[in-house]
């Protein structure tokens, strides 16, 4: 299927280094230089460019011409030492710098906990630990709460009345799901190659219900509960 690259090249285009017979226009050489600097992960030396540009090209003059072209643009071609690179124009760096706090990748543990909460909700902390076989560190749930994907749903009507966790509307939004029932089931996970065939016959993937319905053995969480959990200041001091 992958045809040799050389065969795909439009006829008439030759490796510039070999193109002793051919002459490249000024514009062509600039295009080449521009593309080389753009695609490079590091500033590009003039020696590197000389190797790739048509034989006999006077690299410094090409680069200086290019730098002039870009001087008035939002991106400049700048030289440091004998190496060239594209950089955002200094006066515009504020638009770029804005984004320095980049989205962080969720840790594997956080992904696991989030997925369990999504599929098994309403689920208690103990149940999450049971499924994962390890204790969930405090920070993991905090991260998910902070991301706004996980919420306290209610309390299980069992001894100790453990808090149940579920996903939030933001979770659906972020992961592009219309509703919880859109989470792929066993067959689909298998089909996508995510679950291998080596699973026991009684293996099941729960089908989460609608996010807002309370389970039979679940009570809505109350103001009192949140206070008890230390999640809200005692009432009276409540803001808003």
């Amino acid at each position, binding site marked *: 299927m992958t045809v040799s690259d050389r065969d795909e090249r439009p006829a008439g285009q030759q490796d510039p280094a070999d193109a002793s017979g051919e002459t490249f226009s000024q514009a062509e050489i600039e295009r080449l230089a521009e593309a080389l600097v753009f695609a*490079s992960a590091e500033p590009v030396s003039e020696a590197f460019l000389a190797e790739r540009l048509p034989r006999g090209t006077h690299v410094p003059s090409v680069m200086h011409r290019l730098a002039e072209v870009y001087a008035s643009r939002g991106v400049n071609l700048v030289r440091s030492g004998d190496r060239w690179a594209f950089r955002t124009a200094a006066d515009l760096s504020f638009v770029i710098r804005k984004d320095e706090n980049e989205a962080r*990748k969720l840790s594997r543990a956080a992904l696991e906990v989030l997925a369990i909460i999504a599929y098994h909700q309403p689920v208690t902390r103990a149940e999450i630990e049971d499924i994962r076989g390890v204790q969930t560190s405090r920070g993991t749930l905090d991260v998910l709460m902070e991301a706004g994907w996980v919420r306290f749903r209610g309390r299980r009507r069992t001894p100790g009345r453990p808090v149940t966790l579920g996903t939030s509307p933001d979770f659906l939004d972020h992961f592009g799901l219309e509703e919880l029932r859109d989470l792929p089931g066993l067959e689909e996970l298998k089909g996508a190659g995510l*679950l*291998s065939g080596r699973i026991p016959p009684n293996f099941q993937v729960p089908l989460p219900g609608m996010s807002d319905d309370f389970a039979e053995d679940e009570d809505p969480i109350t103001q009192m509960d949140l206070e008890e959990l230390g999640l809200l200041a005692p009432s009276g001091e409540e803001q808003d």
Partner: protein
Amino acid sequence: MAMNIAQGAIPMDKLWQDAPEKSADDPELLIDVGGFEGPLDLLLHLAKVQKVDLARISVLALAEQYLQFIDSARRVRIELAADYLVMAAWLAYLKSKLLIPQQAKGDDGPTGEEMAATLAFRLKRLEAMREAATQLVNRNRLGRDVFARGAPEHIPHRFKSAYDANLFDLLSAYANLRQRQAVTQVTIERRKVWSLADARALLTQMLGEIGEWTALQQYLLTYLPPADRVTAMASAFAASLELVREGKLEIRQEGAFQPIYMRGGTKADAAGEVVVDGF
């Protein structure tokens, strides 16, 4: 279904080079049928080798070739995956329909010609997708022909959230976790058994377009290796009952030990009717 095809197995020609050393009567010989991706692929290949234009293909001739191929393969005891055999059964049925003039029995099922058209359509569609795939992969691709900024200065947020994760990450994490917990010590022995799900899929596949009473299992059994027959029969029967319950299939049997006739049900969710006269 493709369980009998070793994934990425040795191509046939390689296989034959070793053939003399191999015990010739080894019935467990697994092959990648020349690297074919299933029966449709094989049919498409047969059509191409015969330089038949798909637009004017003779389905009958193609069916003949396919059946000859399967017969030849069975003669040399090549174990073929179930899909190939099901297709053989279906083509044998199609052939019989094409050769025997249609009797006006008031059947509203598709004629042999209609079934042939369906097959030709599927082949043409598959060929079109192959062609599209080739065009796609030969486009100027990022990282091969066209390049992105090598030294990016920022990454625009895809999401408003401060955390980045996509559905695929989430699902893989979940699947891995559950799998890890589930299969710690369980090893399942691979048995030569047609599961209910297998049989169901096969029946549905075969019955898809058939609207008249047909003793389908007979076609099927002709092409199954003897060792598979009992399990295939049992599973197919169980699956057919399940399909009847769902209204996707009707079955009829004249008497005990008589052939079981089946035909596609009328509605997918209507209650099915079981007619078992013999009992």
